[in-house]
């Protein structure tokens, strides 16, 4: 019957709830970080009693998270935009190798940095064109690129480890402006830039729209294809930056470098609350995700525990994070269903 009663309204305060959800998850990740550190303190009180060591330890954790952190920022954009980039490790490798050939090294540090960034961006752009205009599924296109880029990297390097003789590049890893490693500064800049880009610019808005509902974005006049392409180029750019960081850390580059970075980056983005189906995710959460992994590695190292167990714990954390995410999501939707 046709009554004029107002439509059944859903429960109130959902926006606050959503904000809380992000904050809550990040808080949860901070909790995990603190927990890991407490475990460290309990298991290695002798180390943690030395303030210099403690400070150094935190900087080490941050530094070891820096290259993969930069890659994860790019990955987070791609995933929010509804794609996936399996080629990030390979792009780091091709950018690293290309920027450390003798020919490139002869252009000096500037030439090397330029090369790494251009190579990374161009390879990302190729991914983007294949996916946006070639209509390949991003999983397939970047899987192919993963194989191909490592192949090309091996071809260029002649399967050798290419040593960087450029002291400017090599010094990036050991320079510490204001007592904090330059690599950590780079990570901070990339994270802040990524946050602003996602939350304060039209690019970020388009990313959420394209990932959240591509059809709606298209029908609102957004150029979904071009944006998809740009997202993959952005991921490639991040890989180029990471390639320089990693090259400087290892003072060399080779085709097998940045092995399995794609999996670490995807895992970090996901435990940071990025929805694999797109449309939702946070840069801060992704950063925390990377830090959790880096802290686990540190915890296992200081306790001399085997890396097999470490990998098992990492896997467990990924599953736990996604389960928690699902439960919270379910309870939300149930509220609305009633």
């Amino acid at each position, binding site marked *: *019957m*046709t*009554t*004029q*009663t*107002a*439509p*059944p*309204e*859903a*429960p*109130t305060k*959902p*926006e606050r709830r*959503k904000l809380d959800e992000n904050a809550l998850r990040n808080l949860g990740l901070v909790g995990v970080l603190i927990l890991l550190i407490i475990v460290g303190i309990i298991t290695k009180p002798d180390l943690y009693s030395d303030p210099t060591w403690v400070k150094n330890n935190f900087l080490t954790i941050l530094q070891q998270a820096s290259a993969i952190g930069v890659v994860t920022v790019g990955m987070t954009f791609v995933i929010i935009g509804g794609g996936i980039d399996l080629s990030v490790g390979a792009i780091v490798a091709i950018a690293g190798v290309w920027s450390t050939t003798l020919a490139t090294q002869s252009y000096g540090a500037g030439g090397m940095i330029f090369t790494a960034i251009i190579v990374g961006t161009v390879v990302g752009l190729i991914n983007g064109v294949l996916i946006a205009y070639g209509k390949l599924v991003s999983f397939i296109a970047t899987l192919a690129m993963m194989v191909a880029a490592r192949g090309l990297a091996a071809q260029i390097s002649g399967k050798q480890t290419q040593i960087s003789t450029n002291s400017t590049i090599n010094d990036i890893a050991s320079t510490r402006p204001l007592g904090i490693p330059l690599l950590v500064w780079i990570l901070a800049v990339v994270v802040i830039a990524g946050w602003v880009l996602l939350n*304060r*610019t*039209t*690019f*970020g*808005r388009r990313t*959420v*729209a394209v990932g*959240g*509902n591509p*059809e*709606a*974005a*298209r*029908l*609102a*006049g*957004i*150029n979904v294809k071009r944006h998809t392409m740009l997202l993959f180029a952005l991921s490639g750019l991040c890989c180029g930056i990471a390639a320089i960081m990693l090259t400087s850390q290892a003072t060399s580059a080779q085709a097998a470098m940045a092995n399995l970075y794609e999996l670490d980056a995807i895992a970090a983005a996901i435990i940071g609350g990025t929805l694999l189906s797109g*449309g*939702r995710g946070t840069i801060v959460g992704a950063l925390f995700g990377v830090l959790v992994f880096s802290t686990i590695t540190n915890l296992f190292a200081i306790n001399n525990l085997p890396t097999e167990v470490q990998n098992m714990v990492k896997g467990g954390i990924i599953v736990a994070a996604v389960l928690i995410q699902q439960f919270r999501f379910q309870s939300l939707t149930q509220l*609305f*269903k009633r």
Partner: protein
Amino acid sequence: MTIPTPRDGHAPADPPPTTASSATAESAPPAETMTRSDTTENGGLALKTGGDVPAPPAGDDGGDGPGDVVLRLTDVVKTFPGVRALDGVQLEVRAGEVHCLLGQNGAGKSTLIKTLAGVHHADGGEITWLGQPFAPATPQAAMRAGIATIYQELDLVDDLSVAENAFLGHEDTRFGFTRRRSTAQKTREILSRLGHPEIPPRTAVRDLPAAGKQIVSMARALSHDAKLIVMDEPSAVLAHDEVENLFRIIQGLTSQGIAVIYISHRLEEIREIGDRVTVLKDGRTTAANLPARTTPTRDLVSRMTGRTIEYVFPPRRPAEKREPLLVVEGLSRKGEFADASLTVAPGEIVGIAGLVGSGRSELLETIFGARRADSGTVTLDGQRITGVGRAVRKGMGMAPEERKSQALLLDEPIYKNMTLASFSGFAKVGFTDAGGERKAAEKTADLLELRPRDVTRPVRTLSGGNQQKVVVGRWLLDDTKLLLLDEPTRGVDVGARAELYQVIQDLAERGVGVLLVSSEVPEVLGLADRVLVMREGRIIREAPAPEIDEDTVLDLVMSGSLTTESILEGEPA
């Protein structure tokens, strides 16, 4: 299952629905609300209200059907967020009969059959199956109980064989191994029962034509020993001669005592195959157990469309002649629509009436540039429109048919959804201006009387009507000259409909051209200045709204295949 429903209080003695409420009710057109007339001139049963046993109430073996009552629904209610999909459905099905369900799009037919199939669960009312209360928890449970459903989109696994599909989910196994030979044998038997022993059980379903796939679906139903088979528009995918064959199969089934619920838009099919008809409208039974062969078409149609309070249209403005804003000429897309030409003037509302599959949504999307036309042109203000981006820039906006999947970012706040087409305009050098967007969105929200007004809430939490307002509001923010509306009131509860109608009317007052598509004929007639009728991809009639009435439109829209058929039958004779 006897969950008390809000409707339980409604006894036959209840006041008529028109008194239900308020100002809108009073401004409603004087009741053509036929829904409660007690009998029809054909002796079919009138609507039974809550709690009543469908007449004739003389027990389960009451005389006018071929067999015992197997299924009975009393006052079944099913609500979704914002929508009351079923709002008191009565239905009685007897063994061995073909019971037809008739109703417009959105009348609740799909929800009803999904409730029977265990996909949805009723919120209230009572379902009895073979004399027992019936509430299938899962589709499997419904299957086991003997109710099989054949959906329009056949749910077959293309790469499995006919036999594997027929026995999918209850494979004949021994020690965990499927028994291929005996499965094939059983399938062959079932196919013979269906009159199609020629279908090889081991062929992959992929290789069968649509009609063959349908038979496999039926074989699956019989493999479960179904006593009731629900068919959702089975003829929609079939060619003419295949429909004849389908009817033969259905007759074979009913002669074995199996009951069939048959859903179709095509009245002439109902006449040919049906025994009794139940008509649904807006989730309610408006007439039950009408004789399928003898009830006049006009009667059936009026029961499907009976005007109620929901169609409250603002008074029509006097039409003024202006130069067309949108000109579409000879637009065609293969397999969807052909040679469509139309115009929309500023401030004019043009409505397109047509069934799902008539090509109306495709036409709208092509005009918007979201689909590429094979031939023909679209011009807005004299400028060619070739793609969505250009359409939006030139001042076209569209509220697509599937709000959730095509228009909204459900998890994002209202204001970001409203500015989805215009946030770049608010931005300065690429940086978004959330504050400005919020303010603009609030203004639009006020204009549209959006509830709640808090534009930072996620769209997911809004009712259907308010979600639709957000989609429409998106284009208000963007200085749109022409608005394309595809089923603007689908899934919108009745209260909000009137408001949406007002919004659309107001837009036209402001000089916006509106091109509207709707399955609900009264909506098109009530809103539009000019009406186009589409059938099978062609615009077959154009008329100013006052010069055409609902029944005419429905005749044009629905009896299309009747006409075709009579032509075909006429030829050899």
